[in-house]
């Protein structure tokens, strides 16, 4: 279980700028699609 969390955190900590960019763009797209 500890190993799983270690792997999870390591995976989460890699490529942070890309993840943030993906989050922001996904947010923009959700707004574009759903705002009437």
């Amino acid at each position, binding site marked *: 279980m500890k190993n799983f969390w270690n792997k999870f955190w390591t995976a989460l900590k890699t*490529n942070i700028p*890309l993840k943030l960019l993906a989050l922001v*763009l*996904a947010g923009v*797209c*959700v707004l*574009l699609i*759903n*705002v009437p």
Partner: protein
Amino acid sequence: MSKEYWADYWKRVVDMFNGFDIHYLLEFIVLTVTFYYVFKILKDNKCTKVIGGFVAVILTLAVAISLDRNTDSYVTLIMIALLSVLVIMIFNTEIKRSILGTGNKKHIKKEVDSATVRDIEFIMDEIIRAVQHMSKNDIGALIVLSNENLPEGIISSGTVIDANINAPMIEAVFYPKAPLHDGAMIIEGEKIHAAGCFLPLIQTDALPQEVGSRHRAALGVTTVAAVTSIVVSEETGVISIIKNGEIKKRYASDSDLKNELSNYYWTDLTGKEGKSV
């Protein structure tokens, strides 16, 4: 743009959140994951400029749609889908390699754990001894260090041996009159899994003339799968190490071979750093 327009837009955004629906969240998750993996593929293939293009297209769409309420917002989804499919089509071999690259670590990890460090050192020394000997005698050889991650077609094109690794065995396979010499030997962990296997050749004009079909085969297999190839040239006896579709070391020495084999046995197969098992 008038102040009233943006105030109205903001009001519509707030209204959207007031009438919150689970499908907004699902859309957000799916889009985030899609964007992240498309960007990762582009970044891994050194195409960071294309990420900028992607962002520019989305932002331009955002501006266009927010300026004109009549524009169908599903244009955004269609554009994202088209761009993602385009990236997947362009980088299909790289994606295939990264999917196959995972391999079966658990199975081999167990094998390596059960072996002593001395056993693995012995195997590495035997591979190096065989390669050096074949190089001195100008015997061509192609060894693929795999993690059970080669397409099944490659293994079935040869003969499964499942033999222990030792120098005389490797040299016997590549002896010019031996039936399995004209093909690749696949090593999986502590075993010679197969020999006489045919590999996909890389098709490119960018390679120098002296790069023969053995090197092309090694480049081809390392392009489609995350494996390492060791090639001994039949003409010159030069030993090369090939990885990720590139010649990593054109003239590999003993220490280069040792490093590469150490990476294979201690990092690729066990998923651990360093020499501890």
